[in-house]
C-alpha cells in the first residue's frame, strides 16, 4: 500500500471528557478499497472515535485525517468526502424522506439535477419510494436507518463511516447494506464500520481494529488477529480473549 491510498488516518488520537479518558492515543489507517471493522465492548470508545473522524467531536490531542485532509484544520474538505451514518438515526421528524435527502444534497452543494436523480435512485434502492412523501416521524426504525444510510450516500462519498449500521434492519435490508458496502469498497472508497455483530465483521471486513477502554488493543486481518489472541479460531473467541469476556461463558454454563 502506498501513502496515497490512505483514506482515514488517526495518529495518537485522544479525547477526554472532564477527567475521563474516552479515547487514548488511538492510531490506525484505513486504505482505499478497504472495509475496516471497528469492534469493542460497550463504552470502549468506538462512537467517540467515529465522531472525531467525521468532525462531530474535537479531539483533545492527536490528529485525524480523512482523504489526506486534517479534520481539525481543513474540516470542510474532510467533511465533503465523508459520509456518516450514526448509531441512532435521528432525522428531522417533520421532513419527508425525499425532503431530507434533498436537504442533505443541498448541504453538500450538489448540482440540482444530480440531487433529483440521486434521490430517485436511492429511494428505489432502499425500497422507500412509497414512503418518500411521508414525514419521517411515521417511519419505522428500520426505515429511518435506511433513510440515514441513503442520506450518507447522497454525495457518493469516498469515505463512509457507519456506526452500527445493521441495527434494526430486517435480513433483506441488512443484506442490501452489506452489498452496498462491498460495492463501494470495490469502487475505491474506504468503509469504516463499527458493529457488535462479529459474524458481519468477520465475513465483511478486510481488516479489524479492536478497541477496549479507549485503547486499540489489536489491529489487522483475521490471521494477524489470531496471532494476537490465544489462538482461538473465530473472531468471537479472539474478541472475548482480548477484551476479557471469555470467563462469562463458564458463569453462563453454571446458571444454565
Amino acid at each position, binding site marked *: 500500500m502506498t501513502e496515497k491510498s490512505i483514506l482515514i488516518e488517526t495518529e495518537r488520537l485522544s479525547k477526554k*471528557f472532564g477527567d475521563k479518558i474516552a479515547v487514548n492515543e488511538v492510531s490506525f489507517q484505513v486504505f482505499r478499497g478497504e472495509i475496516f471493522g471497528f469492534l469493542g465492548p460497550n463504552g470502549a470508545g468506538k462512537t467517540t472515535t467515529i465522531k472525531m473522524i*467525521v*468532525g*462531530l*467531536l*474535537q479531539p483533545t490531542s492527536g490528529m485525524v485525517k480523512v482523504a489526506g485532509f486534517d479534520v481539525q484544520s481543513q*474540516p*470542510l*474538505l474532510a*467533511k*465533503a468526502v*465523508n459520509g*456518516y451514518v*450514526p448509531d*441512532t438515526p*435521528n*432525522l*428531522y421528524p*417533520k*421532513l*419527508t424522506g*425525499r*425532503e431530507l435527502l*434533498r*436537504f*442533505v444534497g*443541498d*448541504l*453538500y*452543494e*450538489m448540482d*440540482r439535477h444530480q*440531487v*433529483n436523480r440521486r434521490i430517485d435512485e436511492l429511494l428505489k434502492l432502499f425500497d422507500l419510494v412509497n*414512503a418518500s*412523501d*411521508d*414525514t419521517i*416521524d*411515521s*417511519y419505522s426504525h428500520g426505515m429511518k436507518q435506511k433513510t440515514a444510510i441513503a*442520506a450518507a450516500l447522497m454525495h457518493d462519498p469516498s469515505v463512509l463511516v457507519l456506526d452500527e449500521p445493521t441495527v434494526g434492519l430486517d435480513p433483506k435490508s441488512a443484506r442490501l447494506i452489506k452489498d452496498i458496502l462491498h460495492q463501494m469498497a470495490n469502487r475505491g472508497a474506504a468503509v469504516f464500520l463499527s458493529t457488535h455483530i462479529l459474524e458481519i465483521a468477520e465475513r465483511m471486513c478486510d481488516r479489524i481494529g479492536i478497541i477496549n477502554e479507549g485503547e486499540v488493543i489489536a489491529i489487522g486481518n483475521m490471521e494477524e488477529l489470531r496471532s494476537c489472541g490465544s489462538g482461538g479460531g473465530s473472531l468471537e473467541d479472539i474478541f472475548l480473549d482480548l477484551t476479557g469476556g471469555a470467563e462469562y461463558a463458564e458463569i453462563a454454563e453454571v446458571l444454565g
Partner: protein
Amino acid sequence: MIAMIQQRQISSAPLWRSVVKLLRLRLVILIGGFRRAKLSRKLGLIILAIIILSVLALVFIGSWFLLRFISSPDLFQYVGNPTVFLTSVPVIVFTATFAGILLTSFGLLLQALYLAGDMDFLLSAPVPIRAVFISKMLQAILPNFGLILLFGLPLLYGLGASEGYNLLYFPLVILLLSVMALAAAGLSSLLVMLIVRVFPARRVAEVLGLLAGLISILCSQSGQIANWTDVSQQQASQALQLVSRVNSLWSPFAWGGRGLVAIGEGRWLSGTGLIFTTFALAIGIFLISLQTAERWYFTGWVGLQTGTTKKKVRSHSPEVANGGLRYLSSHHFLPASIIAIVQKDFIVLRRDLRNMSQLITPLVFGVIYAVLFLRSGGQAPEGRGQAPAWFMEAFDNLMVYGNVGISLFVSWTFLSRVAFTGFSQEGHNYWIIKSAPMSPGKILTAKFIVGYLPATLLGWGFILIISLLQHAPIGILAYSLLVVTLCVAGLTGLNLSLGVNGANFDWQDPRRMAQGGTGCLSSLFSIIFLILSLALFFVPPFLFDFFQWSGLIGKITGLTLGGALCFAVTFIPLRLVRDRIPLLDEN
C-alpha cells in the same frame, strides 16, 4: 412447582396493593428526580412550593372575605335574592371540578397511556391490568384535583360555615368532589382512546399543545381588552343570575350540590337521595369507563400507534417547492446549503404544531397592543390650538414613531422564539448539519435569515397597517420601515448569538428547548438595545424639528447613528460566537 405457586400468588395480588405499589414507584421516581436535580432547579422547586403555600394562605384569606361578602348587602344589591346564588355555589364548584378534570386529565392521560412509553413494561409485569389503569388515572387527576381542592374547599367550607350547615356537610364535600373527579377521569380516558383510534397520539398531543397555548395567551391577555371599569350593575346582576341557572334540577351536576345543601340544612330525605344518586352515578361511570378502557386498550381496539399518520405531503417539483429561495440560489446570490437550512427550518416550524402556539404568541400580543394603542387615539391631542405648528408636527411624528415600538415588540417576541432557539431547535438532528461541509459563517447566515426575514416582514406588516389606519405621512412611514429593518437585524444578531451560547440540543418537546438563564439575559440585552437604538433613531429628528432645522438632515443623522449601532449589534456578537459553532453539541 415453586414457579406455579409464585404465579398464583402474583395473579391474586390484591388490586389496591398493586395500585399503591405503582403510585409509590412514581413517588420514588419523583423524589429521585428532585435529589439528582441541579441546585438551581431544586431552588426553583422550593420557591414554587413556597408560592403555592402563599396561594393557599391567600385563598383562606379570600374565603374569609367571601364569608363577609356573602352576608353583606352588596350581594343582595346585585343578585336580588342571595339565597338562590348561595345554593348554586356547590353546584358551580362541582360542575367546574368535573369539567376541569375532564379537560385537564385528557392531556395527562394521553401522555400517560400512549406517549410515556412505560405501558408495555407495566402490562407485561405481574400486576393486575386494572391496577395499571387506576394508577395512571390517579396520576392524571391528582395534580389538578389538588389544585381544585386548593380553591374549591375553602369556598365550600366557607359557605358551610357561614350558613351554619350540618357537620355531615363537610366530609361529604370531599367525598363528592373525589367521586366526581374519578368519573371525569374515567370519561376522559375513554375520550382519549376514541380520539386516538382516529388520530395518532403524537398528533393529538401537538394539537392539544397548540390549543392550550392559544387559550392561555387569550386568557392572559383578555383582561387588557376587557373594560372592567364600565361594568354596569345590570350586567353584573345578569352575569350572577346566569351562574344560578346552572343549578337546574335536570342537570346531574346539580344533584350533588343540591344534595349537599339539603344535608347541610337538615333536609335528610331529599339530601340523602340526591347524594346517593350522584355517588352511585359517578362510581358507576368510573367503573364502566375503567372496564371499557381496559378492554379497548388490551384488545387493541384503540390502536397503539404513537407516531403521526402516514399523511402524504404534497409533492412539488423542486423549482415550485423552493420558490423564491431557490431563485436566490440558482442566481448565486446565496449558496444552496444556506437556502437548504432556511427552507428546512421554515418547513419544520410550520409542520410541528407545538411550535405554532409559540409563533402565534407575538401575533396575538401585537394585535392586542395595536388595538389598545389605536383605541387610545395614537395621535397627539389637539389641545387649545395655541401650540406652535412645528411643535404639533414634531409631537405628531413622535406619536407615529410609537408604531415602531409596537412592531418592534412584535418582532422581538417572534425572534425570541425563532432566532434565540435557532440552534437549539436542531435538537438531536444537529449532527446532520455539523457533519456537512458547511462553515460556521454559512450556518450562522442561514440561521440569521430564518429569524430575520419573517420578523422583518411581521414588523413591516404592523407598521403598514397601523400607519394606514392613522394616515401617517409617507416620509415618516418610510423612515419607520427603515428603522424596523435595521433594529430587527440588531435584535436577530443579538438573540442568535446568545442562543448559540445557551444552545440546548437535548429536548423532546420544542416548548422546552429554551431553558436556563441565557433567555433572561437575551431579554435584558434586547430591551437595552431597543431603548438605545430607538433613542438614536428618533431623538435627532425630534431635535431637528424642535430647533426648526432641516427635517431631512435630522432623519439622516438618526439613521446614521441608529444604523451604526444596529450594524454593530448585528455583526459583533455573531463574530464573537462564530468560533463556538464547531464546538456545539460536543457533550
